């Protein structure tokens, strides 16, 4: 299990930009917003929580299609399926590795970008907390989507179509927690709902993803 995690991290770091790619994408998406809505500090501060969350959402989607695709193409998936490790565990480890390489850097990066968007001071703690608790759900939902679209023509596009609607609840609660904190209100209701949703996702999606992978092997 540790072996698989280490291998996944090594692969992510060594293949073309790895974690940096997602971060760069996040930076660009967030940077584009002021160009679109104008440089007004007040407007930016108002929409900052939403922008940061949507940026994180898109950035974590970026590397998802490779989660199982390369393993399927080079025959690794066959051997992994024959290994003593259950596929459910395999999915969970890979999703966790995906979070470590894309989600976690976003959590660290987000406050810096929040500064550029004039995010109110009271919101930073909750921005970090909500992203830290919410982005694992994105990786795990994404893993299920990636497992379903392995080996499908134009899988990447299809993956976005399938996965993005599933991100909606996490986005709603996550952005709400941040913006409630920005308005000086109590963010706990939104935050706890989101944390619960993340736990639920982590518990549920590996089974769906493993089922999908088994279908692909045949």
């Amino acid at each position, binding site marked *: 299990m540790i072996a698989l995690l280490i291998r996944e991290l090594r692969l992510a770091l060594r293949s073309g930009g790895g974690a940096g790619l997602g971060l760069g994408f996040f930076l660009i998406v967030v940077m584009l917003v002021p160009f679109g809505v104008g440089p007004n500090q007040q407007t930016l501060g108002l929409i900052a929580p939403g922008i940061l969350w949507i940026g994180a959402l898109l950035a974590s989607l970026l590397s998802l299609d490779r989660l199982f695709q390369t393993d399927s193409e080079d025959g690794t998936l066959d051997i992994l399926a024959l290994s003593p490790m259950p596929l459910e565990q395999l999915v969970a480890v890979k999703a966790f590795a995906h979070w470590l390489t894309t989600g976690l850097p976003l959590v660290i990066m987000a406050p810096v970008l929040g500064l550029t968007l004039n995010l109110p001071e009271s919101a930073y703690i909750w921005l970090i907390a909500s992203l830290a608790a919410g982005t694992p759900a994105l990786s795990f939902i994404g893993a299920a989507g990636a497992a379903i679209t392995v080996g499908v023509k134009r899988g990447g596009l299809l993956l976005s179509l399938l996965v993005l*609607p599933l991100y909606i609840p996490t986005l709603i609660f996550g952005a709400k927690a941040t913006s409630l904190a920005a308005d000086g209100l109590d963010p706990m209701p939104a935050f706890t709902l989101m944390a619960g949703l993340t736990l639920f996702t982590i518990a549920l999606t590996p089974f*769906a993803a493993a089922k999908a992978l088994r279908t692909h092997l045949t």
Partner: protein
Amino acid sequence: MSIWEFANPVRFMRLSGRVLPWVTGLALLTLLPALIWGFFLTPNDARQGATVKIIYVHVPTAFLAINVYFMMFVTSLIWLIRRHHVSALAAKAAAPIGAVMTLIALITGAVWGQPMWGTWWVWDPRLTSFLIMFIFYIGYIALWAAIDDADKAADLSAILCMIGSVFAIISRYAVNFWSQGLHQGTSAPLIRPGEETQVSAVFWQPLMLSIAGFFLLFLALLLLRTRTEIRNRRINALRAREA
């Protein structure tokens, strides 16, 4: 004789072939009178004027939009557990019908909302939920279309349908949390006519008939499309045998 007998393609074809003309006829005999009654023979609403008559299309299609997805959930589950091909193909056949019903509900909602709320679209929880629903339908249809192997496509889209159903319910509550809406309470009070509800019996009776009509229309389309899908599979199987 159990209900699973109809899961056999041959039996299903035989039975559905016999039933289809009747269901189609019944659907037309219910839907046409219901719409004529609703559109021309009911009075205008005191506040909403003639706009209220959109209800005879809007409510039945919205009702189907949700229930078709639920039907897909059930048939997908049956496929995953019992491997009945007809069940998987029925889910496949239902999806485009459900998507169109959702789209009609959204469009009629917009047309209705414009004079009522002064805008075509508001990010109201109910409207947003239907939009999400529509995207789920599109994703499901796209997945079926993207995979060549029929059994594999059935498996994967069934898994997607399971995940989608769970998240559709979560989304529904998340969206409620996100925004309080303009949309009137719920359609459920419509079913209990009386002084305390918003809709009076004059509107209620043709509406019930219209819902029944749309439901029968869905049933007819579903049977027709499932038959087409089964024939399609048979053609492929025959081709594979010739090759």
